[in-house]
């Protein structure tokens, strides 16, 4: 046991009252030095104290004690929660509230107590200390409240600004979006296929899918020769990857031929003069595929079809998608759209042409899709 209980903590974790309590000796600042002895007879406690005299006490009920001290009757009772404790004595009752430094008695302020650094005080002194403590505690709580409310308001404002920026970005993206009507692009695609004697219904689903891949990941980025790395596809290793790579290359040559475009040495596109395609649809600000290749996210621009209008590849894409959709079930159509969307992102953010292509693809496949910015 530490000297005078210095360093010892009570139930609330505060320094215990500075005093000495031994089996027969008690010494404290207010109680002075006293010898004492205690015994028990049945349910009755007997206590002898050189300063206080003889005391006989017993527990009448829970939290209720009765005693005789030097012939004087004593009744003590404390009931209820710490916030509003009911104190009962033979002279009446009072209400007190426990605080971190002691207790404040609201009916008999002189019975309040406080303990700071193990020094126990009662009466007026305790009341002053409690008043100072409560004032400081109230001030601290107020500051905390103000800070919490401030942070909440700040977060709300931040969220609101984020929402406004997001809405502004979406509106800007919507303005930049290429908008083509199927009724405009489908006849252009049909005319191209008829010119080349192509009947897509005769094609296998495997090749139709490869043609869709070619349109999205190659034409969509302004190229006409499929190159895996340029499209974001790693070098093929497995049988499935090799087959997809080979199929997209092979069918891509045919699709590029229908569109009247050829690849130069580095795979970027040069439109064959005239291109055989008249832009018939509403192109918005896009006066050619070049304009449509700009990506929204970073503003970079890739080499692209120099003079062809985007209606031609979009028209062919639509017809490919529609034919493919006729040959597969609904789940496969949705899977096709999602996987192609995924593949578009493999080489970076989508170009505007790719976004327009995805819209057309969804129309052709008969699947609804909402585009979101890549994280």
């Amino acid at each position: 046991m530490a000297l005078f209980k210095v360093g010892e903590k009570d139930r609330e974790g505060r320094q215990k009252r500075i005093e000495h309590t031994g089996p027969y000796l008690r010494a404290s600042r207010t109680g002075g030095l006293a010898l004492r002895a205690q015994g028990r007879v049945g349910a009755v406690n007997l206590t002898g104290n050189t300063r206080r005299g003889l005391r006989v006490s017993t527990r009448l009920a829970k939290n209720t004690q009765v005693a005789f001290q030097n012939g004087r009757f004593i009744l003590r009772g404390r009931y209820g929660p710490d916030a509003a404790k009911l104190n009962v004595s033979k002279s009446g009752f009072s209400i007190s509230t426990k605080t971190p430094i002691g207790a404040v008695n609201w009916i008999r302020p002189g019975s309040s107590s406080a303990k700071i650094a193990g020094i126990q005080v009662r009466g007026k002194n305790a009341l002053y200390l409690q008043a100072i403590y409560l004032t400081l505690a109230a001030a601290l709580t107020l500051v905390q409240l103000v800070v919490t409310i401030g942070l909440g308001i700040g977060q709300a404002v931040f969220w609101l600004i984020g929402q406004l920026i997001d809405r502004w970005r979406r509106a800007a993206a919507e303005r930049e979006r290429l908008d083509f009507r199927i009724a405009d692009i489908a006849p252009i695609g049909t005319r191209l296929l008829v010119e080349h004697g192509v009947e897509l219904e005769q094609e296998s689903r495997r090749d139709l899918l490869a043609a869709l891949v070619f349109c999205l990941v190659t034409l969509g980025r302004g190229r006409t020769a499929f190159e895996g790395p340029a499209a974001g596809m790693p070098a093929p290793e497995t049988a499935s990857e090799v087959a997809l790579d080979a199929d997209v290359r092979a069918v891509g040559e045919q699709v590029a031929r229908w569109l009247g475009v050829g690849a130069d040495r580095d795979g970027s596109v040069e439109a064959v003069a005239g291109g055989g395609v008249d832009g018939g649809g509403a192109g918005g600000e896009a006066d050619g595929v070049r304009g449509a290749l700009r990506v929204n996210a970073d503003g970079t621009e890739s080499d692209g079809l120099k003079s062809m209008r985007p209606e031609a590849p979009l028209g062919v894409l639509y017809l490919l998608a529609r034919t493919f959709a006729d040959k597969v079930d609904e789940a496969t159509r949705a899977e096709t759209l999602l996987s192609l969307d995924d593949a578009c992102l493999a080489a970076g953010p989508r170009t505007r042409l790719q976004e327009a292509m995805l819209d057309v693809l969804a129309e052709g496949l008969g699947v609804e899709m909402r585009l979101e910015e890549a994280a």
Partner: protein
Amino acid sequence: MSEAALGSFDALVRLHRSLICDPDARPVDSALRPARVEEAEAWTWVPTFELIPYRCVDPIALALALAPEGTASFHDLSDDRLDGAIRHVVEVEGPIHWRVLAERLLDAAGVTRLGSRIRERIEERVEALEQRGDLIQQGPFVGRASQLRVPRLRDWSALPDEIRDLDHVPDTELMLALFRAVLDADDAEGIPADQAMNDGIHRMGFVRLTRNARERLQAPLEALLREGMLRLQRGSLHLGRDAFLRSAESAAGDPGPGRVGTAASDVVLESRPPLDAAELRTIRD
């Protein structure tokens, strides 16, 4: 490529593979794949992976019965009738082993024994039909060009024992059975050669992988390995890099007559360079 991530081709590769394994019935496929039109009148490679029942020809439909017309012997059948019957048998059951073809003709004619003269007569008519371009003979098998080019995976389980013999199954069909067994196995782990053989022939209705069956399957398996359709890795068979390529796009750029589903597969397989000795040992062990 591993787990599908945002911005990858993984999902597309899986989707494409599923379409390869479930090919269209008979696409003409001329616009997107013009290179293959000249070499094939049907699907050039990657046949259906569907198991179809072995269809036997109806003897009555061959119209070779001797008694009703008072014909005394097989030799009295006219060339036209015999040619028609051969064409019909091949149409229904081709590619068909020569012995099974003869069995069908004799059965339809009500003749019980295949003598040397009857044999010569049938051989003569088959050769005549081949010269006319109606049929092709590859070793002991007779079939139409498209049948030999496009293997079919047939369920032989309902056939009588004397017909249900692995020697009567064309190499291309056995190759397809083995390929299918590897295709069904886990890509990463592969499948031991013996297991592939067992699974392959079991699917076709041959219940036991006997020593003879194992020997019969060696050549088709080696052909698959040579062709790059399968590869052997640490004792297990895996799909080869070129497994799903069609003949016009084989690695060498040559349609590859030895590939499954191409015209002269069985003949040319013999002239291919042999497998590495260690590879052969691994397969046979």
